[in-house]
């Protein structure tokens, strides 16, 4: 991610660069000591809360116990990884994780794009403003409250969903404890919550489209839909590709908190994913299995990173825009 390379190299800039290079590296660093001093605090934070845990992830290759600590515990190689891959949980967790997030991606990725195109087309300011104000709002609601909302709405006794079904002579259905409904509940409540806010980034890309392009197209007799297809969509393509890459990179992880909240003993069959399993091994079982849980977590992180790199390579090859 480098903007600096995007800056045009004018002759004046190149000269300035040469002049700077004439000054030694040590001198330049000494001149900027105050900037480094400012960076020091965030860097210490980064070392402690981001890189120390990465180092701590080596317990995945050890038999961690509290007394000996991270360094002192015995090395056991890939024992925990083998145990996980061979366990009966492995395929079920992998399947649930992948299906949930691929479903989410397919069902909801294009929704914010559609919303942004619609908003961009709408000319009446008050209408645009109110749609935006209302659809952005759920983004600021917490996961706990969203799940709480789901609970009260689908409640088998008093929830509005079952009241409605009763009118049609159907139900009552207990949505929360049925594994068949879990994925739909997860994906569509997510769409409700994030679609409006995710449209912002596409709207920003659309506002950068020159109005002259549209005017020229109108003169040539292009219809609205044609202009969307040939002007608006190409304008948001780079943003869409980048968001898609990021989405694919997080296929193994996102949404863990909501999954955990929506989970109950009756829907485990579809709702148990890698992250919730790690949580249970580490915090909700009688004997915490830190090393085994850390191994599963590490497996998840590595696969996620690999997917990100892969998606980026594919995007760079075919869509000609990429993260790096």
């Amino acid at each position, binding site marked *: *991610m480098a*903007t*600096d390379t995007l800056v045009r190299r004018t002759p004046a800039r190149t000269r300035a*660069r040469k002049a*700077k290079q004439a000054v030694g*590296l040590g001198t330049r*660093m000494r001149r*900027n000591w*105050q*900037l480094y*001093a*400012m*960076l020091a605090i*965030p*860097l210490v*934070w*980064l070392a402690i*809360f*981001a*890189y*120390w*845990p990465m180092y*701590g992830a080596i317990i995945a290759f050890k038999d961690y116990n509290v007394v000996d600590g991270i360094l002192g515990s015995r090395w056991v190689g890939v024992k925990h990884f083998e145990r996980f891959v061979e366990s009966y949980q492995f395929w079920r967790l992998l399947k649930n994780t992948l299906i949930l997030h691929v479903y989410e991606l397919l069902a909801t990725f294009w929704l914010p794009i559609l*919303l942004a195109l*619609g908003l961009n*087309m709408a000319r*009446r300011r008050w*209408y645009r403003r*109110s749609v935006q*104000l*209302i*659809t952005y*709002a759920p983004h*600021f*609601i*917490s996961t*706990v*409250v969203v*799940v*709480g*909302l789901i609970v009260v709405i689908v409640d088998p*006794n*008093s*929830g*509005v969903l079952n009241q409605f079904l009763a009118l049609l002579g159907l139900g009552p259905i207990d949505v929360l404890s049925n594994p068949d409904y879990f994925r739909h509940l997860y994906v569509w409540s997510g769409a*409700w919550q994030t679609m409006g806010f995710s449209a*912002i*980034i596409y709207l920003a890309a659309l506002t950068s489209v020159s109005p002259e392009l549209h005017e020229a197209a109108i003169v040539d007799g292009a*219809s609205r839909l044609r202009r969307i297809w040939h002007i608006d969509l190409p304008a948001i393509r780079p943003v869409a590709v*980048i968001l898609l890459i990021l989405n694919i990179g997080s296929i193994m992880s996102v949404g863990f908190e909501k999954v955990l909240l929506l989970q109950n003993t009756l829907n485990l069959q579809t709702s148990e994913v890698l*992250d919730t399993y*790690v949580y249970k091994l580490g*915090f909700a079982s009688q004997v915490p299995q*830190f090393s085994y849980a*850390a191994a599963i*977590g*590490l497996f998840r992180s*590595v696969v996620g*990173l690999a997917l*990100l790199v892969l998606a980026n390579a594919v995007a760079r090859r075919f869509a000609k825009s990429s993260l790096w």
Partner: protein
Amino acid sequence: MSMATATSSPPGTPAPVRETRSDRIVMICNYTALGLFTLAVLYPLVYVVSASLSDPKNVVSGKVWLWPVGLSVEAFKAIFDYDSIVSGFSNSIVYAVGGALLATALTLLAAYPLSRKGLPGKGLIMALFVFTMMFSGGLIPTYLVVDRLGLLNSRWAIVLPAALAVWNMIITRTFFQSTIPEELVEAAKVDGCTDFGFFWRIVLPLSKPIIAVNMLFYAVAQWNSWFSALIYLTNEHLFPLQLVLRQILIQNQFDPSQVRDTAELIRMKELQEQLKFSLIVIATVPPLLIYPFVQKHFVKGAMVGSLKG
């Protein structure tokens, strides 16, 4: 988008000359679809507010579906008799305000130096930050670090690990790059201004929008967070509101010992179902109150160009 028949088409104004018939149909469909989608987003929110303001009996029997039936504010009064909700509310305010101040400070301190051209080692430091977005040690190792630092069961365990979000840092850095011209820095240097002085007297006053956006993002994130409290805290007096909400709303745990007298308890049992609605309203109001004030900032530029920073 669906061709629905609901009538939220715009009031008639003279159409531009070039507007063809098919374009007008597209436009009407567009307005209708936007309107229907907005109503779909709005409905659950309206339903919850209405239910929280209705008579408890009507809520339990399912008579409420759009507007309040039999006005009553009992459920809101009951909230304030439930001790852990009150303490959760005040804890959440501490976490949100404290967390937002700390995190915004850290974000500005990281973003400004990294926005400056020609700082030796800048690329490497930036890469160190960005890498943590793609790869993390994981839940267990992070927990062990917090444990090792002796932060378990303290307010710091909630605030410190969340004290910087790399994404926000990148947005802030992009803001600095596009609003603080390098010429200004050089002019100030010629006048003998140090980097500290420049940051304090010139950069910060020019950065009010991005400071506001950061404060909002961090405060809302803290207000809405519950998972770190779940794993790092066992002392109930430190629980944030969201964790208390989870117990009552989702796990259906209603703890009578939290209520002080028995007459109250009987009333509370009747109210229990409705309490959920009023709780949802109370927990959602603070973030929704601040957001319109900051909305114009993140629409205007703060998010723009942040992606490929």
